[in-house]
Every structure is written in structure tokens, then in C-alpha cells.
């Protein structure tokens, strides 16, 4: 069922953020920064855009989602649980021994996970393979692939981009979580990543730039990509790493660190406050 009310979607995104913090705090391990930055994108995809049914997670005609930046799986797990793929109770075991919620997503362990990811740079090629297959079978699926900005320093991304364009994969929509930070600093300083729009445009993509935390803008952008024929699309989502938790926002140190008890309480109270004011 599609949710169209912006406030309702904003509340879901906020709920996902709470669950991200809960998971990373419980595990005392994980990646909060990049998970928080993509919460709105995942919300729009799973609650407004994608043709999916949590009761039929393997349905052939379903749309696919590949979390190429696999370390941000707390956001994906929270989204899937919120959508009803599995019980929210399971989120407590994230990253623990014998849990299905591994440190990076596993296609064989979690209903709703469409591809095992974690090693950066590989998800777009897999998505290209899915998009080609869907076209061959006339299955009508759309394939969504979420990329990290640091991740696109990997050469394989550009190999895949070339293939997407060559094969005219208009059923493929990549999303760049452009929060500007990677482990060692800014994407400009560390990898020399600049002119992202121009790069993808020159590789033959339909490029749309949006505020990655504006639900309405994201919905509009995804709707535009569905109309574009003959070429793949990428939504450059300008985001804030750590979005929603004041002391995590734009702080590179929160890339892969768990909050202590005090920080956890503050983060949850900030997020709960937002929920009610919405």
C-alpha cells in the first residue's frame, strides 16, 4: 500500500532513524552516520514508490533494491521491519552471533534483502544484471540501487555506469547518498570526488539533483525517473551525514561508531521530539 501523505512518511523516516540508533547502540557497533543520511530515501522507496509485498518477498515481478553501500544496513533493516518483512524484535540482535541481521546485508538470511552487499562498488553491476534480466523477461521491474558518495571512487561503479547506459536501462534508477563525507574526511579531500552530476551525465545518465531529506522532492524525482525512456537515471540526493541527531550531523567521526548510554539517550530524545512535532 502506497503512503502519500508527507507527514506520515516523515514520521516513518523518523521511526527508522530511532531504530537505526537502537540497533547500533545495542550492537555497540555499526555505521550510524550514513544510515541516518539515507533514511528519507529508503522511506520514499519502500512506502511510496516500490512495487513490493512483504508477504511475497521473492515475487518475481517485484521491484528490487540493492543497498550498494551495504554498511548502512541498519537503515535497510529498520525499513524492512517497519514495512513488515520481519519483526522489529529482531533488530535487537543486529551484528550479534547467530543473528540473521549480519553486519552487512545477506540475501539468504533476511527477507526483503535483494542482494548481499558490503564490499563497496559492486552493487551497481548487480543492479545492471537485474535490469537486463527484467527487460529480457519483460517482467516490468524497476531496479533501485543506493550508492554511497565515497563508494563511487571505486572504478567498478563506472564500468557499471557504462553498461547501464549502453544497454539503455531505463528501468534502473541509482540514488547517490551525497553526504560529502567518507571515513578519512571529505570526498573532495580523500578521493578527489567532484562534479558528480557532470560525471554521471557524461556516462549517459538522466541526472536529477534533489534535497535528499525533502520527502516531497524525492517523490517527485522518482516519478520523473519513471517517465524517462531509453536511459538509466540517477538521483543525486544531497544529504547530511548523521541527519536527525544534532551531535552526529556532519561529523565524520560518526561514520562507524556506536553511541554510549548518554549519547544514545540524547539521540533518541531528539528524534522522539521531532516525531511529535511533526
Amino acid at each position: 500500500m502506497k503512503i502519500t501523505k508527507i507527514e506520515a512518511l516523515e514520521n516513518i523516516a523518523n521511526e527508522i532513524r530511532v531504530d537505526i540508533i537502537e540497533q547500533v547502540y545495542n550492537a555497540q557497533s555499526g555505521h550510524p552516520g550514513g544510515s541516518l543520511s539515507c533514511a528519507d530515501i529508503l522511506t520514499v522507496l519502500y512506502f511510496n514508490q516500490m512495487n513490493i509485498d512483504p508477504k511475497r518477498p521473492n515475487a518475481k515481478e517485484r521491484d528490487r533494491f540493492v543497498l550498494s553501500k551495504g554498511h548502512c544496513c541498519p537503515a535497510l533493516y529498520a525499513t524492512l521491519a517497519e514495512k513488515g518483512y520481519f519483526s522489529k524484535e529482531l533488530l535487537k540482535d543486529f551484528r550479534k552471533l547467530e543473528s540473521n541481521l549480519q553486519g552487512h546485508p545477506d540475501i539468504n538470511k533476511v527477507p526483503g534483502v535483494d542482494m548481499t552487499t558490503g564490499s563497496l562498488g559492486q552493487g551497481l553491476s548487480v543492479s545492471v544484471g537485474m535490469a537486463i534480466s527484467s527487460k529480457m523477461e519483460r517482467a516490468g521491474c524497476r531496479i533501485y540501487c543506493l550508492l554511497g558518495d565515497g563508494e563511487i571512487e571505486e572504478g567498478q561503479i563506472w564500468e557499471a555506469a557504462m553498461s547501464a547506459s549502453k544497454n539503455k536501462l531505463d528501468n534502473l534508477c541509482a540514488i547517490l547518498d551525497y553526504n560529502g563525507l567518507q571515513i578519512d574526511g571529505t570526498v573532495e579531500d580523500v578521493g578527489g570526488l567532484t562534479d558528480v552530476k557532470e560525471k554521471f551525465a557524461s556516462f549517459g545518465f538522466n541526472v536529477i539533483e534533489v534535497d535528499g531529506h525533502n520527502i516531497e522532492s524525492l517523490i517527485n524525482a522518482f516519478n520523473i525517473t519513471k517517465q524517462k525512456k531509453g536511459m538509466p537515471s540517477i538521483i543525486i540526493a544531497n544529504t547530511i551525514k548523521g541527519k536527525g541527531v544534532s551531535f552526529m550531523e556532519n561529523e565524520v567521526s560518526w561514520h562507524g561508531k556506536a553511541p554510549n548510554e548518554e549519547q544514545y539517550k540524547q539521540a533518541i530524545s531528539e528524534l522522539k521530539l521531532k516525531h511529535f512535532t511533526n
Partner: protein
Amino acid sequence: MNNENKIATRQSYGEALADLGEKNENIIVLDADLSNATKTNIFAKKYPNRFINVGIAEQNLLGIAAGISTYGKIPYVSTFAVFAAGRAYEQIRNSICYPNLNVKICATHAGVTVGEDGATHQMLEDLSLMRTLPNMIVISPSDDTQTRWVIEEISKIKSSVYVRLARLATPIIYDKKQKFEIGKGIQHGNGTDATIFATGVAVSEALKAKEELAKQNINVRVVDIFTIKPIDKELIIKCAKETKRIITVEDHSVIGGLGSSICEVLSESYPVKVERMGIEDTFGKSGKAEELLKYFKIDKDAIIEKLLS
């Protein structure tokens, strides 16, 4: 063995693949700008809509194949062994083996028998790299008949498979009635003076050596270990018990390939001395394939010399 009628396993692969395409519509073939050399061009001509050329981008090649396999299709992926098992190793590990996807990697131009291209293109570590991966079956066919059987058989198995193919034309060893089974070696003869375990192009060299040695009253058996993983432990132990010497021969590094696999089995279950013949912790070099077999001491004459020593 027919010494007159020679064919490279890459050629057998290309022809078998085109035949398989007719029987099974789910077969999709991918290549990275080497289809003329890997022989996937035969399939490409016949089924252009089921052939994907990704260009010179092997990491992407394996990733796209992984994605295609999630749709229930059976991708057969080809490039040279050094670019598949080497360059795209981590894609094979994380996007194919770990998620346990059904991708067939048929890599050609393995070993020094690549010839003139030299060390950069002579993959000597692929068996080693591929057999350490969980969920991976590793096959190294020795002749035309076996290769054709393997290519069809693996389409029926839901697992990732690595098939190691050669550029050099080698004799046809098996007739069409020969029965094969994945994971089972093929024993040639019952000689008790030695067992020569061989794989790939080395099998025909071992068989030639066996014939000549018989004339000197040295009776060896040759075992074609065409499945490197899962390996035929039972047959290896049986031969170690029944014969006086154990020798392994392969067009691959002596580290990590057939020789190492045999050592692992025997050291655990029936410790005996194992003499490994292969490429000795070094890179290959340019030359004619036959010259290189001789140079690196993995040809018939080197095997005979070893047995006489």
C-alpha cells in the same frame, strides 16, 4: 587416446555452449571483449539476444552475472583465467560465492600453455584462489569429450562453478561412451609402480608417459582429477595404498593447486611422500606452448624422467 585428433578445451567449450543454448533458454552468456578467443562467439552468433559483451571490465562482468542469476537465469561468464579468478576475485567472492549464486565461470587461457603472450596472461594461481572459496565447485577438464559433458552437466547444478579451460589443442582422451561424475576422478590402468595424478592439459602428457614407461616395464596408473573441488578423497587414498609412488602434474603453480590438494588429503588420511610437478613458485614466460611444457618440466619427458629417478 587419439594423438592425431587434437582440440583445445576452449573450443570444445564454445561449441558445447552453443549446443546448450538450444536446449536451455535460461542460458545467458557474458564476455569481456574476448569472445573470439574464449569461443563464446559461437554462442553469440547463434543467440545474439542472450549474449552480453560488457567490454574490458571484468569486475563488472562478474557483477552483472550475479545480478542475472538472481532472476533464475544461468549465466556462463568467460574471459581469460587471469582476469576472472585474478582481477575479479573479490567480486566472485563477495557477489557470487558468499550469496551462493548460480554463476558458471568458464575461464580460458589458463596455465603456461597460453604460450607467446607470456607471464601476464598465463594464470598459474586460479585453482588455488578458486578452491578456497566456499560454495564454489572447481573443475579442470582434460579433453574435448569431458569438457562438453562438464559444460552441460554444470547447468543442472545450482551452484557457482569455476571451469578452467586451455588454449592449447590437446588429444581427445575419452570416447563418447565414457561416464563422468563431478567429484570423481578417472583411473587409467592399474599399475602399482606409481600413481600420477594429473589435471587439465597435463593428463594427456601423463598418459603418453604411462605408455612409454610400460615399454620399460614400469607400470604406472594415471588418475585424471578433473574435479579439483570437491576432490575424490576415496580414490586418492586407494591409489596411495595400492602404489609405490605418488606424483602430481599440473599446468599450475605447485602451490595451492592439484598437488597441494592431493597433499592435503593424504597428509590427513594416509601420509605418504608426494612428488609435485608443476610451475615452481615462479611466473611463466613467452614461448610456444609445447616448448613451455618442456621448459617447466610438465611434459611427457619430464614425467618419464621423474619416474626413472
